[in-house]
Every structure is written in structure tokens, then in C-alpha cells.
């Protein structure tokens, strides 16, 4: 290989793999019968999906009066869940787009699964704005289509409408990016399959052959999609934060929201990637592709973004005090010491204090700590959205309309139900497509595989000729 290999770089693919081993390892999970763990997980996930469908039918049939939301606290679990899911849906595109532009090769082990996770999280997120409209059959009113009312157009001044465009663009562009990356790998599965499976994969792999010109265009497309997805992923959570920041509610009307939301989104997204990867690598036996170094790198991103989020929380408090504006001061006093103080402290503990443990290399590289802390961070980020939305609304301008909110079983079912939806989709994905990008892993094998670098290296990096074979201990 003519590419320089730095001795400080980690080995990214372990286990002395050949190209054929890689196809074998990554295609087999889609070929063999599902394992018992998979069947159990799928049963539980689809049971929650069933609960979700029931709760949606209940909401649509009876109306959103069945929720705990009231006239004062008119956005509650619905929008909390929406923002939580959309935040989770940021890590995939971040990993695949931003890390591609920065030429971070470790992304190839996790990008496929992370992108899939993004798409499923955005599907879950999209449920809530639609359900919370109440009359879901009129949901298409949010699009500017020629209508019989004039045509009267939607209000392009409204951040809620910007959100419609941002989320739908983000979803469709992520889908294109993910699927185009998947096509060569589906062709690999196709060429190993037979019978009905082969027919299906023939359709889904679009007639891919692996021609040099196609690869060249494919790489060009991937790079440009990465380039435009990078500002896109930043814009999406910025626009979600505009839903709050452009309103005139004290506690929401703050200029720090866009960067604070984006950092929080990356934070929660990486936490969810960790939760899923730790399980996936174990169940599908992918420890040689999704290595401890991957987990370590992602934990570094978590400690960075968690700290940014912590600084944002403190800045908010400082600015509220420094503004000298009593309504702003009250909003934040209420946020910290008001009726929902427990959610504020839960948020502070889970998001700011707990990720600091990742400064320790030992904890960063521990599977159990990573799994535990990733769940804690996910809980914390849910609390963050609840704190911003519900506690702010609970104490509005008129003390006579102050209120308290607690969810009903319908809202709890909707939330846990979307978790079921998410895992159902993810489990199906692990059965039908390779969860690690096969072609991309093969492409980095010679610069990051352990037989080409590190102590087990067999070949010299100079010109590919054999040197003394070192035995694996």
C-alpha cells in the first residue's frame, strides 16, 4: 500500500480477516434462522408496537382530551417525545456525514447501523406532531398545496412550518444516503442467495454489478450527500429549537437554543447508538468490526457534547439572572426550584454529572459502564425536553391559570409504544440487511486491518511483498 499508515492509529478490524471472511461474517446474520434472543426481543418489541397502535386508535377515536395535557400545559409528553426522538435521530447522519468529511475511518464499523437507527428514530419522531394535531386525517393541511380555500397558503413565517420542511427533508435525504450506501452490500447478499431470497435482493440491489465507473459515481454521490447532509443535520435541530426560541415565552425565548439543542441531539444520539451497538455487536458477534476502540471514540463524543450541554444549562441560568428581567428570572427559578424540581435535578445529574465518568479511560472502554451510562443519558435527555416544555408552561403569565401536569395511560402507552416501533424496525433491519457496511469495511481493510498493521502484521506496508510471517501468539 502506498498510503502512509501512522503507528499511532488503532487497528479498526480485528481477527486477521480476508475479504471473503468479511462478506461471510456480515451476511450470515441475514441468512441463518433468527436466534432465540432475536425472537424474544422481536416479540417484546412488537407487543409494544401493538400497544402503540392501540393508544393511537384510542387518541384518534376519543380525541386528545384523553391526554393529561391541559389548557395551560398544552404541549407535554407529545412534543417532549418528538424532540427526544428527533435528537436521537441525529447521530447516524453525524457519524456518516461529518465523520466521512473528516476522513475518520472508524466510522465504517458503525455508520450503517447508526444511519438505520436515525431513520427509525425520525419515523418515531414524526408520529407525535401528527398525532398531537388531533384530527390526523387533516394532517396534509401542513403542506402548501393548491387548495379550494383560495388557495390560502400556509404561513411561511411559522417555525412550525419550517419544522415540517426540515424533518421531511431530513428523513428523505437520510433515507437516500443510507439506501445508496446499502445497494452494493445488498448485491453481495444477492450473489450469495438463491431462490426467492435471490429474487427479492435482485429487486432491492437495483442491478448493481460493481463496475469501476459505478463505484466512481457512487463515491462522488456519497461525498456530496455527506457534504449537504452536514449542514442539514445541524439545521434540523436548529429549526426544532426555533419552535421554542422564536416564541415569546420566558424560558423559551433564548438565543442559546440552536447550538444547545444541536449539542444535546448529538449527545443523545450517540448515547442511543451506544445502547444499540453494545447489544448488536454481542448478539450478531460483530466484536471484531465494532471494537472497543469504536465504543471508546463514541464515548469521547458523549463526554464532549455532555459538557457542552452542561455549559449551556449554566449559561442559561447566568443569563436569566444577568438580564435583570424578572419574568425570565422567575421562569428559571421555577425551572430549578419549582414544582418540577425533580426533573431539573434528574436532567442535571444524568446529562452533566454522569457523562463526566467518561474522562476515565477504564470506564470509557468498559462495555457495562457504557451500556449503563448510555441509558442514563437517554433518560436525562428526555428529562431535558420535559423540563423545557412542561415546566415552563406550567407557570405562565397568570397565576390563576397555573397548573400541574401528569400523563395519563394513553400518553405513557404512546411513548413506550414508539420505543416498541423503533426496536421492531431495528430488529427487522438486522435480519434483512448487513448491519455493517461490507464494501466500506473491505475498502479500509488494508490500512486498518490487524494483519496489515499492529503487532500481528504479516505484510510490510511498503510494496505489499511478503516479509517474515509473525505468528499470532
Amino acid at each position, binding site marked *: 500500500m502506498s498510503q502512509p499508515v501512522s503507528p499511532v492509529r488503532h487497528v479498526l478490524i480485528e481477527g486477521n480477516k480476508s475479504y471473503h471472511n468479511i462478506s461471510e461474517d456480515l451476511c450470515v446474520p441475514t441468512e441463518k434462522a433468527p436466534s432465540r434472543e432475536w425472537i424474544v426481543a422481536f416479540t417484546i418489541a412488537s407487543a409494544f408496537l401493538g400497544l402503540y397502535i392501540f393508544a393511537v386508535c384510542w387518541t384518534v377515536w376519543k380525541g386528545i382530551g384523553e391526554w393529561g395535557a391541559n389548557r395551560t400545559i398544552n404541549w407535554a409528553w407529545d412534543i417532549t417525545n418528538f424532540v427526544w426522538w428527533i435528537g436521537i435521530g441525529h447521530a447516524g447522519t453525524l457519524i456518516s456525514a461529518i465523520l466521512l468529511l473528516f476522513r475518520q475511518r472508524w466510522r465504517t464499523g458503525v455508520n450503517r447501523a447508526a444511519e438505520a437507527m436515525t431513520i427509525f428514530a425520525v419515523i418515531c419522531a414524526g408520529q407525535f406532531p401528527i398525532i398531537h394535531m388531533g384530527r390526523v386525517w387533516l394532517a396534509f393541511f401542513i403542506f402548501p398545496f393548491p387548495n379550494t380555500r383560495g388557495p390560502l397558503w400556509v404561513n411561511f413565517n411559522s417555525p412550525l412550518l419550517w419544522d415540517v420542511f426540515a424533518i421531511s427533508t431530513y428523513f428523505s435525504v437520510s433515507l437516500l444516503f443510507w439506501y445508496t450506501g446499502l445497494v452494493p452490500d445488498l448485491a453481495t447478499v444477492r450473489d450469495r442467495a438463491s431462490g426467492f431470497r435471490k429474487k427479492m435482493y435482485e429487486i432491492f440491489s437495483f442491478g448493481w454489478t460493481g463496475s469501476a*465507473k459505478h463505484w466512481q459515481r457512487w463515491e462522488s454521490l456519497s461525498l456530496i450527500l455527506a457534504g449537504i447532509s452536514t449542514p442539514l443535520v445541524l439545521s434540523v435541530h436548529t429549526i426544532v429549537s426555533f419552535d421554542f426560541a422564536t416564541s415569546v415565552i420566558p424560558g423559551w425565548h433564548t438565543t442559546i437554543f440552536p447550538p444547545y439543542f444541536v449539542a444535546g441531539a448529538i449527545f443523545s444520539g450517540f448515547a442511543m447508538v451506544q445502547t444499540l451497538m453494545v447489544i448488536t455487536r454481542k448478539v450478531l458477534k460483530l466484536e471484531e468490526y465494532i471494537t472497543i476502540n469504536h465504543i471508546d471514540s463514541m464515548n469521547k463524543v458523549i463526554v464532549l457534547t455532555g459538557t457542552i450541554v452542561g455549559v449551556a444549562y449554566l449559561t442559561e441560568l447566568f443569563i436569566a439572572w444577568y438580564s435583570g428581567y424578572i419574568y425570565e428570572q422567575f421562569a428559571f427559578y421555577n425551572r430549578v426550584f419549582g414544582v418540577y424540581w425533580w426533573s431539573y435535578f434528574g436532567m442535571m445529574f444524568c446529562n452533566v454529572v454522569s457523562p463526566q465518568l467518561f474522562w476515565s479511560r477504564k470506564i470509557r472502554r468498559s462495555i457495562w459502564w457504557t451500556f449503563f451510562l448510555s441509558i442514563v443519558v437517554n433518560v436525562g435527555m428526555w428529562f431535558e425536553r420535559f423540563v423545557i416544555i412542561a415546566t415552563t408552561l406550567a407557570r405562565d403569565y397568570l397565576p390563576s391559570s397555573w397548573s400541574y401536569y401528569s400523563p395519563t395511560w394513553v400518553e405513557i402507552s404512546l411513548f413506550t409504544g414508539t420505543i416498541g416501533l423503533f426496536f421492531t424496525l431495528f430488529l427487522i433491519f438486522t435480519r434483512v440487511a448487513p448491519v455493517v457496511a461490507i464494501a466500506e469495511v473491505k475498502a479500509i481493510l488494508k490500512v486498518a486491518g490487524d494483519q496489515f498493521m499492529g503487532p500481528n502484521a504479516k505484510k510490510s506496508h511498503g510494496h505489499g511483498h511478503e516479509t517474515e510471517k509473525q505468528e499470532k501468539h
Partner: protein
Amino acid sequence: MAAESKKVLYGLYNDEEDLKSAVKTARHDHLNVMDVLSPFPVHGLDPIMGLSESRLHILGFIYGAIGATFGFGFMSWAMASDWPVLFGGKPYWPVPSFIPITFEMTVLFAAWGMTITFYTICGMWPGVKAQIIDHRITDDKFCIAFDVTDTDERGVSGLQAFFKKTGAAEVNVKML
């Protein structure tokens, strides 16, 4: 795809370095390579093959520009001309409010336009039957293919010699 069948002589290599040096030899010997196929993008192959750079990114820019113009133009027309509505004393043509959607439309058009163009120019769509030369090309083999439909005996044996010289692991003939 063309209905008439093609006779393809192809060699399979085990390593991308062998493939690259073979392609270099083929260019040097002025052989008319039909296609080079690999399980993953082999970097440095395009200049050796003499492939010109893809122009897809230029189209991406054009699609993006169309999206931006369309988004901004449509919003301006709808809000300022077709049905002006006074929202809380704000101007009829609130340009800063249009920035987010204009940006989203730019990205949307560029991404969809480029992806559709990519699949169209590569001749790939759901239901297209792949012209598979060898099943192992998507696994671990690197392939150089020659179209030998109209090639005489001497030409074919010349190509056989080329494969032998460049270290192909296997040489086969297939009707496509």
C-alpha cells in the same frame, strides 16, 4: 439493456494491487477493456483506467440552485403576491423567515436530483437484472472483462496471454 448476447472473456484477480498493475498493463498494450469490476471502490484505479472524473457533483450544484430558486420564489409569490396576509404587522415579504425553507429545499432538490441521476446514468433501478459476470465479484474477486463477441482466435489467445502475464487467478468465458 441490449437484447443481443455478448461473449465476455474475463480474468479474476485476488488482490486490488494485482488488479491495478494488470489494468496498467492493459492500457499500455492498448487492449480494449470492457469493464473493471471490484467488490469495493479501489482507490487510484480511475486514473490508471483513464476514467474521467464524474461530473455528478456539478449536477448536484445545479439541482441545489434550482431548489433554492424554486423554494424562495414560491414562498415570495405565495406570501407577497398570490394571497398577501398580514401576520401581526410583519412585512408581506419577510425574507429572513424564508431562509430555513430555502435551505431545506436546496438540500432536498440536490439530494434527490443527484440520486435519481446516479441511478439513471448507471442504468440501475428496482427490477433491473444485473449482468453478473461472476458471483464472487461482490465478495472478494477483482475482475477485468473483455468483450470478445467479434474477436478472432488470435485476439482471444492474446488476451489469454495477457491474463497469464498479469497473474490472474482464473480466466473464464461467459455469455451475457
